[in-house]
């Protein structure tokens, strides 16, 4: 399974191993980790929650989109849910391609799409309270109720 949601710690090498390919000249790995300070506010820990069945489908859809744009790419993504501590790994994206630029580009494409269409939510537990994060500045909003590029099928 190249696209997974897990409640266990992610071993980065396991995700990389899924995209190893004899014709690959590059593997890029993105590791998303839990940050302590956001605009001066201190996070104690995070809770990630997913609509797991749909999240796996959407991750796999991102994989399909990448193959369409970069036909020789191989992609694997694992996102963790549950309680994560500062510095814990929340997501690992591995992409292999014959040449390095495509591996960088496709990897960045994957994380941007995760933030648009994959039903995963994080709850910040601050020193002085807790909030579901849904309005991060880097998160696009969808006034039409539907993310761009998501067909209705």
């Amino acid at each position, binding site marked *: 399974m190249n696209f997974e949601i897990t409640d266990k710690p992610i071993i980065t090498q396991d995700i990389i191993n899924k995209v190893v390919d004899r014709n690959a000249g590059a593997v890029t790995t993105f590791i998303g980790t839990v940050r302590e300070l956001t605009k001066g506010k201190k996070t104690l820990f995070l809770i990630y*929650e997913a609509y797991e069945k749909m999240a796996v489908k959407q991750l796999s859809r991102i994989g399909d989109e990448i193959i369409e744009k970069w036909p020789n790419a191989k992609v694997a993504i694992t996102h963790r849910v549950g309680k994560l501590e500062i510095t814990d790994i929340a997501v690992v994206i591995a992409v292999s391609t014959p040449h390095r630029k495509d591996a960088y580009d496709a990897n960045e494409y994957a994380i941007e799409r995760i933030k648009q269409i994959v039903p*995963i*939510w*994080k709850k910040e537990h601050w020193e002085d309270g807790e909030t579901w*994060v*849904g309005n991060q500045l880097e998160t696009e909003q969808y006034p039409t*109720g539907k*993310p761009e590029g998501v067909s209705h099928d």
Partner: protein
Amino acid sequence: MINLLLFANFQEVIGSKALSLELNVNNILELKNYLLSKYPELDFNFVMVAVNEEYATDETVIKSGDVVAFIPPVSGG
């Protein structure tokens, strides 16, 4: 029977992860209006909706047995 899945702040407002509703609604918009009448504090702005795990719209027709999930703005990664 419509099977409703709730996440993040929706789960907290409604106080449940999932609901089975015996309802006579034809589409998502009607379901939203029903929920708003019961839970006026729900805010559907920027909230996406999925029917049977695929993104849908207010006009999407729903029938008994469908799984409807409201998807508040996501924050994975």
